[in-house]
């Protein structure tokens, strides 16, 4: 068998739909709007897309990739619909990079859209629904019985927030982490949102505001929780060789790794450790860079504890030291490790699966297009998505092409 030479992959186009609240757009509408903007950004044509990657359970009718590809008018020769929760887009980035490298496709689209806010009617702090028990936009649909592994969890009134609270409580018990330290993460994200005119919340937030907000599930308060917004995103990836001839400055995919530890929260092997600890070293090694080289971090922030665990597991600080690490403002724009420079899911945009927005914001930073939130001279970005209930982590290291 003759194999094509391995080809490096670069991000050539990015597009965001509108957010945070867009009542007139369906999930597919968000995907289509983001795709059109990513195409325009790259200067490519729809017919150039021969690899199609999506994941989503926000709307049952776009759950399958073939359906969404058909709606967007794409005829792929490589298709992938891997679902790992919100980290799926980091996982799909890995798969797309491999597919391009192996010559199985030349130009890949990763796309996502969700109307979770406008049609799901989920609001922050409501406690939501049992995690992934039924699709979000079928608000009144209640199956009477639950089968499989969730049969052992759903009857006890768990939901997304209370699941993450189990991790936060254990982290506090083992390491003495405080609510004030977790609050620092929300405060930094809100500060960063102040630079983003589209962010859902932009008014300054203090540690006192966070720890003074309503407890939803101990120890998580209202402002430890992400927003629920509408939104969509698209990323176009092609060979580095081709990307260098296109309109935008290429952003190279230096590495993309992922690791799962469990799916249901009751099965989490260690409530203070995620799969990021299993794949971060491999990501740095494959990229040939170190943690000190990273100029900006885009990390999944469904809850404050989600960020804290990833900072430790990615190795930016030691296990248990996340609380102290985040307490000096280093996550803020202008700080030592500018993180979630668009305001993150905690203040800006979180339509249910935030992973694609992490990639898009990293690309904006590496192109130098982040405006007032720009990290000066940013050349390397790390992206870390957390999917499910701290279940499957996907990390990537992106670099500005020289």
């Amino acid at each position, binding site marked *: 068998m003759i194999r094509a030479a391995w080809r490096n992959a670069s991000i050539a186009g990015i597009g965001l739909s509108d957010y945070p609240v867009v009542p007139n757009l369906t999930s597919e509408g968000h995907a289509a709007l983001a795709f059109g903007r990513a195409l325009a950004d790259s200067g490519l044509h729809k017919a150039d897309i021969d690899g199609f990657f999506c994941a989503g359970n926000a709307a049952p009718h776009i759950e399958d990739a073939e359906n969404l590809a058909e709606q967007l008018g794409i005829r792929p020769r490589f298709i992938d619909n891997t679902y790992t929760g919100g980290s799926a887009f980091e996982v799909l980035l890995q798969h797309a990079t491999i597919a391009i490298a192996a010559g199985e496709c030349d130009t890949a689209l990763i796309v996502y859209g969700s109307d979770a806010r406008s049609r799901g009617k989920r609001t922050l702090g409501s406690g939501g629904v049992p995690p992934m028990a039924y699709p979000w936009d079928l608000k009144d649909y209640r199956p009477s019985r639950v089968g499989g592994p969730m049969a052992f969890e759903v009857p006890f009134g768990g939901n997304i927030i209370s699941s993450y609270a189990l991790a936060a409580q254990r982290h506090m018990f083992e390491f003495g982490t405080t609510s004030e330290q977790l609050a620092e993460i929300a405060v930094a994200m809100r500060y960063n949102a102040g630079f983003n005119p589209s962010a859902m919340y932009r008014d300054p937030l203090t540690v006192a505001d966070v720890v003074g907000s309503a*407890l*939803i599930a101990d120890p998580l308060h209202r402002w430890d929780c992400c927003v629920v917004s509408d939104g969509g995103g698209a990323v176009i990836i092609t060979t580095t060789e081709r990307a260098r001839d296109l309109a935008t400055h290429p952003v190279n995919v230096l590495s993309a790794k992922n690791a799962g530890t469990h799916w249901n929260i009751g099965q989490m092997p260690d409530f203070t450790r995620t799969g990021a600890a299993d794949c971060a070293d491999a990501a740095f090694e494959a990229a040939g860079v170190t943690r000190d080289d990273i100029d900006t971090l885009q990390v999944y922030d469904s809850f404050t504890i989600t960020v804290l665990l990833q900072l430790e597991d990615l190795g930016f600080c030691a296990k248990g030291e996340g609380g102290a690490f985040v307490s000096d403002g280093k996550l803020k724009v202008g700080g030592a490790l500018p993180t979630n420079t668009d305001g993150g899911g905690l203040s800006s945009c979180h339509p249910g699966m935030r992973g694609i927005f992490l990639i898009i914001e990293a690309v904006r930073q590496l192109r130098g297009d982040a405006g007032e939130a720009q990290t000066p001279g940013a050349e390397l970005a790390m992206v870390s998505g957390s999917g499910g209930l701290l279940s499957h982590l996907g990390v990537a290291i992106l670099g500005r092409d020289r």
Partner: protein
Amino acid sequence: MNDLAAELHTTERMLPQPDTVSAEFWDGLAVGELRLQRCTDCDTAQFYPRPTCSTCGGAVEWFVATGRGEVHTFTVVRANGVEPFASLVPYVFAVVQLEEGPRMLTNVIQCDPESVRIGTHVQLTPVAAGELVLPFFTPASRE
């Protein structure tokens, strides 16, 4: 038992659908037993029930566990938009570490939610939910 079932709104919860793998577990609760699986090859106990051992892939057999354990981690849920849990707040959603090794999600009941701690000793308390029985846990002093 019936008073407790009413107090916990058990029949209003989304209830389990037993299947060929899990039926033994649910049947055990109906007679007050916590039945777990143990591997016939590597001897590892596991929960929830699976077709094979998730440690080594071996065959599994059932045994009756003590029903004793301690709270590994927990949260006091103070807001939940979904009934019947909206009416039950504040309640304790907990992961119990069983003596035999596996962990289970449950509610710690019949206590002040504010009194539960990581390490609190607990004991199985089966509570009826229609024709099924759910595995709740209650604080226990360990002899």
